[in-house]
């Protein structure tokens, strides 16, 4: 065995798949029937073929959707967990809204510190050019379904800094925004109203969640 070869049993390195750059060690795709051995992209394709298309064709998907949609939708709209992300003074109002006086937690608004656990991104301040790629990364790290609330004038359109050399003119220039809350800064009541508006939007617009597309 020469030094260039892979140490150990090359058969055990199967899981690396096409990720390896060495063409000699690239293994073929696993058998399509056995979903336990699939990579994530292959698994999605397998789900499409084996589950989604069949469920769509037979009409089962529609039936299950109608049954489960009210339940899933109820769960969605009463747990819009926002990301605990503060930019400027509106973040203080966000904190006041979460405090005991207004207590948005009774509407299911629980602040989480990881974007992986969040449904709502509250942009609460001016987004400067240096922050923009980071904020976009945070948005992309959040799992679907996700919504964005633009809180305050700065997040809506740049506010007093709209013609600045470093402030982005509105959060909707780079991420899709669902609810706009005007105010400078936004009062906690207005933020609560924004969350209620988001609830309304979820109730009216969100589809079912059985094999969602």
């Amino acid at each position: 065995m020469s030094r260039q070869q892979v140490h150990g049993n090359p058969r055990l390195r199967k899981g690396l798949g096409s990720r390896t750059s060495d063409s000699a060690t690239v293994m073929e795709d696993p058998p399509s029937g056995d979903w336990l051995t699939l990579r994530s992209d292959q698994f999605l394709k397998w789900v499409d073929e084996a589950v989604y298309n069949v469920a769509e064709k037979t009409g089962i998907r529609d039936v299950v959707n109608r049954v489960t949609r009210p339940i899933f939708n109820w769960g969605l709209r009463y747990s819009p967990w926002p990301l605990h992300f503060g930019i400027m003074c509106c973040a203080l109002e966000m904190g006041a809204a979460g405090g005991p006086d207004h207590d948005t937690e009774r509407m299911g608004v629980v602040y989480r510190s990881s974007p992986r656990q969040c449904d709502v991104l509250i942009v609460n301040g001016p987004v400067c050019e240096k922050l923009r790629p980071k904020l976009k990364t945070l948005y992309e790290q959040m799992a679907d379904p996700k919504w964005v609330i633009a809180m305050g004038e700065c997040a809506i359109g740049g506010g007093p800094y709209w013609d600045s050399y470093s402030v982005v003119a509105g959060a909707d220039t780079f991420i899709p925004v669902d609810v706009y809350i005007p105010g400078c800064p936004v009062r906690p009541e207005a933020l609560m109203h924004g969350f209620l508006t988001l609830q309304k939007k979820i109730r009216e617009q969100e589809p079912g969640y059985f094999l969602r597309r």
Partner: protein
Amino acid sequence: METGQFVQQLAKRDGASDGSVLRANVGRITVTRAASQAFFRVLKEDFGFDHCSLISAVDNQTGFELVYHFSIIDMEGQMLEVHVELPRDTPTIDSITHLWGGADWHEREAYDLMGIYFIGHPDLKRVLLPDGFAGHPLRKDYVYEIHEEEW
């Protein structure tokens, strides 16, 4: 030592002029760019100004002006303003980061927003604006087109 004595002694040095006392404990002095490095060294080692509080850059249209604020930690309220004039076309000055480590980010900020080049700075790059930003936006002659620059 009183502030007046500080300023009097410092004003006798080469390149220093306009020594005055602004108010209690706050002195002001003007130094030429060529003499600044030796002046700052004396300021730290002989007069005990061990804290670089602030570096401001002023755009006077005809030229730039740097305003350093130094203080002494053990003498509360003791402050010295050092003004250095820089020509418009060559806004460079020797860095003072080897004397006061805290001047590092002050100098980077002055470079970032006003375009003052600090010779000998260990890591002179932008600190507030994104890398690749064109120009120095706090200069009076900075012209920007709203959100149309690419970087």
